[in-house]
């Protein structure tokens, strides 16, 4: 049995099912990196400047040890041509200063422009990601954990966007420093050059290996820390239940297990990191002592000048840091190819519901809504149809009630009308036009659903009500708020419609949220209005007033009320009783009561607890 304190935060199934996995082939990795690079190339000047600056900065950096070596030789009576030694030293000093300044300036350009390319890449990826998320259909969002999408949008984009700086630019820098610098050393003295460079392969290998290990353990650590966060968050949010069961000790225990698991790995990472950096420093210093010994013997033998030995040693100190970065280069490649693959995997998804090519805008004459032998199964469970062969018609001015047991398909009907999903078989038409043949934008402007769950945006009350029409003027907002029986409440708030609500604002009760959602929808005066059990948390008297407002506006539209409280539907023109996706009963309240079937049973059941009201 999985330990709740240590089980992974959630099964990682959904993203894998979408092919957004961590496994990548070399070919795919290369393609991903090239694609990241192509986004970077949209700022060609910055890319060019970064690369040129990198080259120059590296070259100037290589010149410094030679100048210093030359200076030392000058003090040892080296030939200075026409100049006396003192003047030559002056010129050398000036050169050291000039080259240092140039290196600094170009290093700045290198860093700045490569960062800038990374930020531009991130900016472009973010915009594309945001837009894609907005357009992917409900079927997609049902199947993916929202936390995974946030991680993808934050961490994976972050992982991919820096490729130019951490991968490309660093590669150029290391290539010049190690390649050109090494060639220069070997040219001066092969054996000493080999000794001076002897630490490079080891450090390169070691840092690559440890970077990959650190990356893996970092991912593991994040997983363990997220489990720990979950344990803490659930405890703090559920503090009443913890206290109700006097489970503080149990919770502490859960916390300690999760905490220890994370701490152990954190310790492991410290060891991993320290072992590798210490080993790298050791190999570097050992190479240096070998150079000192062999070079010293050569100087003694007169085969080498003191200045050249100084240049060798200085060069080694310059090379030390970049060589360690070989590992970061490897890490960058690994990171970009996995993160990038996940991001692009999502960006390449096509919404399963979208406007067909050549589709026209919906033209409303009635409106008349018709379900014509509609069968539907959710994409996540294609074998279990939720609606079977369902047909009904609603005409302008009509109010239709839909009821049924949980799972009978009421909400599904509501969600098919604005095409949040496409029907599996059959067709839904409005004024004879198949929903799939009209543009999605025009359809959704005509059809509005007040859903069960209300999403509040953290902004003012008026911004929330005007969510569908942010150009609405205050009068319109107030009118629809009044129709939804919300106005009196908002009016009593200190800042009225300017009151900030939502996650970090004033909190609304369930009924207030539902009324806000109704106001939001009424503001848009849709031609097809669907209430998906959206008055459940509103008390009977207020609900009655809202229904009166809906009845008043019925003439120009089609109205569908989905409910499980039968009193909501009492005034509907027609009531459809759904049972496992088909129509079990249909008729007016009086018809259905007379029929004595399911509706009647449900009516009796619900009114038993209503005392002697009816």
């Amino acid at each position, binding site marked *: 049995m999985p330990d709740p304190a240590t089980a992974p935060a959630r099964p990682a199934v959904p993203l894998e099912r979408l092919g957004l996995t961590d496994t990548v082939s070399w070919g795919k990795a290369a393609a991903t990196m090239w694609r990241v690079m192509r986004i970077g190339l949209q700022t060609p000047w910055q890319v060019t400047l970064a690369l040129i600056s990198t080259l120059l900065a590296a070259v100037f950096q290589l010149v410094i040890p030679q100048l210093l070596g030359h200076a*030392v030789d000058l003090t040892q009576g080296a030939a200075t041509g026409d100049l006396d030694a003192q003047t030559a030293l002056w010129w050398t000093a000036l050169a050291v200063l000039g080259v240092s300044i140039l290196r600094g300036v170009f290093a700045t350009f290198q860093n700045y422009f490569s960062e800038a390319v990374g930020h531009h890449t991130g900016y472009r990826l973010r915009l594309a990601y945001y837009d894609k*998320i907005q357009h992917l259909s409900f079927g997609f969002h049902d199947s993916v954990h929202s936390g995974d999408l946030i991680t993808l949008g934050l961490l994976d984009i972050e992982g991919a966007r820096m490729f130019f700086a951490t991968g490309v630019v660093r590669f150029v820098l290391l290539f010049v420093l190690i390649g050109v610098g090494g060639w220069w050393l070997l040219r001066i003295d092969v054996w000493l050059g080999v000794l001076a460079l002897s630490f490079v392969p080891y450090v390169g290998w070691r840092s690559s290996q440890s970077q990959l290990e650190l990356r893996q353990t970092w991912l593991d650590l994040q997983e363990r820390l997220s489990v720990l966060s979950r344990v803490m968050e*659930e405890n703090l949010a559920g503090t009443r*239940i*913890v206290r109700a069961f006097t489970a503080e000790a149990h919770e502490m225990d859960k916390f300690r297990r999760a905490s220890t698991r994370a701490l152990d790995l954190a310790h492991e990472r410290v060891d991993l990191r320290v072992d590798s950096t210490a080993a790298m420093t050791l190999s570097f210093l050992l190479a240096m002592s070998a150079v000192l010994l062999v070079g010293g013997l050569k100087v003694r033998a007169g085969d080498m000048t003191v200045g050249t030995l100084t240049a060798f040693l200085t060069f080694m100190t310059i090379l030390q840091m970049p060589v360690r970065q070989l590992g970061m280069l490897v890490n960058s490649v690994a990171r970009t190819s996995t993160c990038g693959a996940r991001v692009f995997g999502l960006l390449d998804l096509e919404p399963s519901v979208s406007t067909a090519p050549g589709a026209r805008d919906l033209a409303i004459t009635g409106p008349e809504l018709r379900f014509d032998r509609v069968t539907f199964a959710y994409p996540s469970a294609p074998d279990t149809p939720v609606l079977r062969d369902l047909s009904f018609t609603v005409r302008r001015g009509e109010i239709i009630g839909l009821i049924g047991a949980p799972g009978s398909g009421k909400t599904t009907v509501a969600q098919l009308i604005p095409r949040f999903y496409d029907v599996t078989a059959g067709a839904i038409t409005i004024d004879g036009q198949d929903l799939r043949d009209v543009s999605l934008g025009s359809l959704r402007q005509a059809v509005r659903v007040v*859903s069960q769950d209300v999403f509040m945006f*953290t902004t003012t009350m008026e911004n929330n009500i005007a969510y*569908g029409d942010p150009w609405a003027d205050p009068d319109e907002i107030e009118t629809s708020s009044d129709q939804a029986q919300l106005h009196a409440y908002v009016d009593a708030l200190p800042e009225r419609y300017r009151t900030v609500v939502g996650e970090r604002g004033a909190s609304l009760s369930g009924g207030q949220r539902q009324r806000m959602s109704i106001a939001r929808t009424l503001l848009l005066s849709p031609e097809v209005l669907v209430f998906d059990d959206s008055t459940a948390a509103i008390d009977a008297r*207020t609900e009655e007033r809202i229904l009166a407002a809906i009845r008043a506006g019925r003439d120009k539209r089609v109205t569908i009320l989905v409910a499980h409280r039968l009193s909501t539907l009492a005034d509907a023109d027609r009531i459809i009783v759904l049972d496992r996706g088909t129509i079990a009963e249909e008729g007016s309240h009086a018809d259905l009561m007379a029929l004595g079937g399911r509706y009647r049973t449900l009516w009796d059941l619900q009114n038993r607890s209503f005392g002697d009201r009816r």
Partner: protein
Amino acid sequence: MSGEQEVERHDVREDGRRPPRAVVGSHRIEEEMFGRVFDPKILRRIWAFVKPYRRQVQISVMSVLIFTLSQLAIPMIIRYAFDVGLAPGAPAMALYLSVAAFAAAVAVNYASSMVQERSVGKVAENVLFDIREAMFGHLQRVSQSFMDRTEVGRLMSRLQGDVNAMQEFLETSVVSVGDLVLLFGIVGCMLWLDWQLGLLTLSILPVLFLVRIVWLPKAREAFIAAHETNSVTNGALAEAIHGVRTVQGMTRQTVNATLYADKAHANLRTHLTAAKYAQVLVPVVDTLTGLSMAVVVVLGGAMVLDRTLDVGVMVAFLFFIQRFFDPVRSLTMQYSVMQRAMASGQRLTEVLDVPLTITEAADAVTLPDGTPASVEFRHVRFAYVPGQPVLQDVSFRVEPGQTVALVGPTGSGKSSTMALLHRFYDVTGGEVLVGGHDVRRIAKASLGRQIAMVLQEPYLFTGSVIENIRYNRTDATEDQVIAAARAVGAHDFILRLPQGYDTILTERGSNLSMGQRQLVSFARALVADTPILVLDEATASIDSHTEQDIQRALAVLLKGRTGLVIAHRLATIRNADRIIVLTGGRVAESGTHDELMALGGHYAGLYRSGHASFDDRERP
């Protein structure tokens, strides 16, 4: 970008104007990131957490010192090798000796860096986890009223962000000791090697300090701005993901994409500015390094030519200069780390110092098994905020085995009554008795064995179904769990879950329906098997079918127990032995359904008006 040509009514207008009533994401209220550099009070608090590891800290500081000395030794040995080992005619032994010394320094360097970094890293991690554990443990004991008024998100940022800032501080502190020693060591070595050349070279050092002091506040402003726009942009993305169904239902995609692009672009700009600030010091450091090296080349070179300076000294100077600016950089960085740590430390101590108001009395009693499970409120007064009484002189008694229904409008004090029974809060006046003892004199664990609670919102934890039903009764057998689930009618649906009782429930049980969650929480209360059961009935509308299941489960749950139910459903109320009507914090009416109906008071009025629920009628 999506390739769809949607016609949208509420587009951003052609003149580029944004809709007046549209925003994406919300502006976060950021906390103070930086505090005073040095706050002895907070440092003392931090030290209390470090103290258990003081041996490791001592070892770390020792090895940092040794490590720094070995770093200083290396150029000095090179100098010796150059001047003694390479001098024409000097014995070869001198070179071998220097190389041997070099190798020894390398070995010391290796060993001390291993010891230092390992122990520093681990101590910092340990302290981080210890602080977190202390805070988490403290939060288990603080009063419920503190938890009520504190956002979970805020506490989480204490437990994560602020604790991490402390870790960073601890790690860098020990390293800073090394940097400081290194800096003084380099200065000392240079002056010792040649004080004149040393002074000249070092005269450049203060320039960097000055430049950094001017640079720091401006750079920090740029970094904070980048940090803020980043969290704003991320917040907008999170909102788009969570609210995607509303966005699509309201066809806000185009407007939102434009507004998001505004935010992302602002974020790009602040990041480019921050990048400029991050880079602007690079050429300064390079110039100063170049200048120092030029001084050594010209003056040092001249001195070598005059034979007043050994060439090895000149070489050693060049090596020292290359190491020179690193400690300056990290020391000025430490300044920001300190400030951040003090601000975080301040917030951490605030949590750790939340007073414990509900504590166990020293002479608290443990109720023996079989204590008659009676509940009594005697003249109870209670206020969350002094001067705003919630309960005023509430008295009633529930005999063992009885079920009492509490009804009344929102704000009448029902939930407070229930909370007082389990001592979530202490009464302001009067007393609450369980089994004849004042709850303030009963040991916490003992009270826990007497009372189980079912809350209005069924709260489940991530973990398997069986773990959730067991909860803290970890010794409950599988058979007991299954029996409880059967009794409340949850067994059948649990078996239909993909892995039955081992199915992992995701966040708060979101993969179960509301009714199913309710039943699991009933099973959990049944496994707890306490003589007293307190139940806050769900107001959330549940469909009629599930409601029947829940009523049946309730009957099972209350059988043979003393029950205190905040009732919303008439079916529950009618089945109670007694009904207490609370209004405005007082007992207005009390009796059986028939008695209250005969009384013709508040209850009868509500009942006749035919509302499904007696309360939570929203105020107009």
